């Protein structure tokens, strides 16, 4: 068995190392991505990552700059690809160079993408607009993992991040929950309140301060500082005016996800 980190041994070099072997399975676990590559008869016979298979999966995994890997001599569970190791190495060499040029992509592909409030004018192509619209609230890995478009989307994402049209924030590993809106009234306030028990659970899982990103059924999103409140299980209390901005009201079911701003990361 061979284990290590892609930050020490990138995939391309790893494949070159493994080329001498007779066969086995390579498993890769990075934030936001899990992948498997299978070898047999000095050929790559299986490749899978984030729903991608074959060359698409290999292209995606080549872009990873960090993540644990583990190689065992066990044969892959099935075969879904057929290419000689040499051909794969040749193909991926050029692709690895391309990945290196995408300097604005974060190393952590588990980070969440957010549309920024940037007022700068930037002309976007149709492809860029597509990625821009698709990115909000998803991880970098999820946005990249589109069959036949991995590298193209990576280029677009890199440009959008470079121009700060998109930004990334750490993912907390806490999934979104659906909470029912309950308005509160009084002086304008941005604070959202959730039930004390839920707040405590999130605080423990996240291990520090967090905000809430709220998405209404109409697709309108906003971020709110959050505080706990007793007696409101399964509810999120938002100021009446903030609810109206979300085009929601009492009883509307809202998707709520905790998020941490950069600088407010997990200790």
């Amino acid at each position, binding site marked *: 068995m061979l284990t290590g980190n892609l930050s020490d041994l990138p995939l391309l070099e790893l494949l070159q190392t493994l080329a001498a072997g007779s066969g086995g399975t390579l498993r890769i676990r990075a934030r936001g991505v899990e992948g498997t590559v299978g070898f047999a008869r000095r050929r790559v016979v299986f490749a899978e990552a984030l729903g991608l298979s074959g060359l698409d999966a290999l292209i995606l995994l080549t872009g990873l700059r960090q993540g644990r890997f583990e190689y065992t001599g066990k044969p892959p569970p099935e075969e879904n690809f057929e290419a000689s190791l040499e051909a794969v190495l040749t193909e991926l060499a050029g692709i690895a160079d391309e990945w290196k040029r995408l300097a604005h992509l974060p190393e952590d592909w588990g980070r969440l993408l957010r549309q920024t409030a940037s007022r700068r004018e930037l002309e976007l192509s149709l492809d860029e607009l597509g990625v821009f619209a698709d990115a909000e609230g998803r991880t970098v890995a999820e946005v990249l993992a589109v069959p036949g478009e991995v590298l193209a989307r990576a280029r677009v994402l890199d440009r959008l991040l470079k121009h700060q049209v998109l930004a990334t924030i750490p993912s907390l590993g806490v999934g979104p929950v659906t909470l*029912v809106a*309950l*308005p*509160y*009234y*009084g*002086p304008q*306030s941005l604070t959202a*309140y959730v039930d004390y028990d839920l707040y405590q659970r999130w605080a423990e899982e996240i291990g520090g301060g967090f905000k809430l990103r709220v998405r209404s059924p109409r697709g309108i999103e906003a971020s709110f500082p959050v505080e706990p*409140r*007793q*007696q*409101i*299980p*399964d*509810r999120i*209390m938002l*100021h*009446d005016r903030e609810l109206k901005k979300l085009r929601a*009201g*009492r*009883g509307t079911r809202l998707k709520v996800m905790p998020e941490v701003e950069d600088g407010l990361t997990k200790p």
Partner: protein
Amino acid sequence: MDLLSLNALLNRYVWGPEMMLVFLAVGLYLTVRTGFVQFSKIGIIFRETLGAIRERALGAGGEITPFQATMVALGATMGQGNLIGVTAAILIGGPGAVFWMWIAGILGMATKFAEAVLAVHFRQRYADGSVSGGPMFYLSLGLPRGLRWLGGLYAFLAALAAFGIGNLTQSSAMAGSLEAAFGVPVGLTGLFVALVAAFILAGGVRRIAVFAQALVPLMLLGFLAAGAYALAMHGAALAGAIAAIFQHAFGVQAAAGGAAGYALQQTLKAGVGRGIFSNEAGLGSAAIAHAQAQVDHPVRQGFWGVIEVFLDTLVVNTVMALIVLASGVWQEATSAPQAFVAAWGIPGGSSVAALVLALFVFTTLVSWGFYGEEAASFLFGEGIRWPYRITYIVFAFVGALGGFELLTTVADTLNGLMAIPNLLGLVLLGGVVAGLVRGFFRGEPWRPPR
């Protein structure tokens, strides 16, 4: 003075004009203390209640949803008073009585709001998750030490009054009405009422709530549909009926006859009486139901209190009044029950009237069974619940047979007396209500008293 004379004297006072003035004064006081909540927050009130009607559970404290609690309360308040009572008010006070009924109802909104707020604020939670609340709790927990006995007095009066206003009167009215319209023997009606009430009351507040949630809205919609049909039949006279309410509000009709002062007094008394007593704002009884609501803040349940009065007095009573006025029977009829039946003016009108009345009084009977049981358990503990239920069900049966006028009159007086400790408590706790309203509209969380 013997007991009967004393009862008659007390009855005159507790349901008389002096007491009406107290009701109005307390309503006005609470309107001011709450910052005219029924006017200034009307949009929020509708959004939070009827606007959120599909939202069944709020999931915090309490045993039933805010909507269910309101339907239990509305089931109790909507009874004969909304039908025959309104008809009688018009026969006595003329069309102008409706105007004063509205005014009293609007002030009553603040009273009911305060009752519901205090009921939730001072309710008691038990280890099994159940709650109890109502005037007996806010009086005994909220008032200064020397006045806390008022809570016990209220519970005593409510536990006994339930047998009259909630039980004998209602089952007797239902049996009489069904016998007259369909020839149903009163004993059969009594048996049916007792059995169904027994089934519902045996399930506790949750079953009562499920029953009320299903039947009360249906009953309301059925009444409004029948009412709309009746009004359509009297369509030509409708505009005149509405105009008459305003024209006669200050005794104009009687002025022509030369007795303006007396007529205005009669109009005021009849109208204000209906506006106060039909929605029970000030009696405190509905607060027992509102206390059960799952709600994060007492003020949010208070909004339902406002809506309860709105539906009872401004919707149901108004529709009934318009039917009576537009039909013209109020000018000829000699008795309210007769006018009530005749007013519908539609084919099978007497059957419709009998069915509407039967439904209204049955929901009253069930809800008051719960009120009485809560009041009795406040006094004697949980062990009293089943004995109380069984007695209540027996009364529901025998009430249909009739012949309990004396008992009913005494219970009626006890019912009126309930208002005295409650109104006193509302005045003394007005500051608590005002503080809760201020806190709610500053976005502050509710902190229940320790």
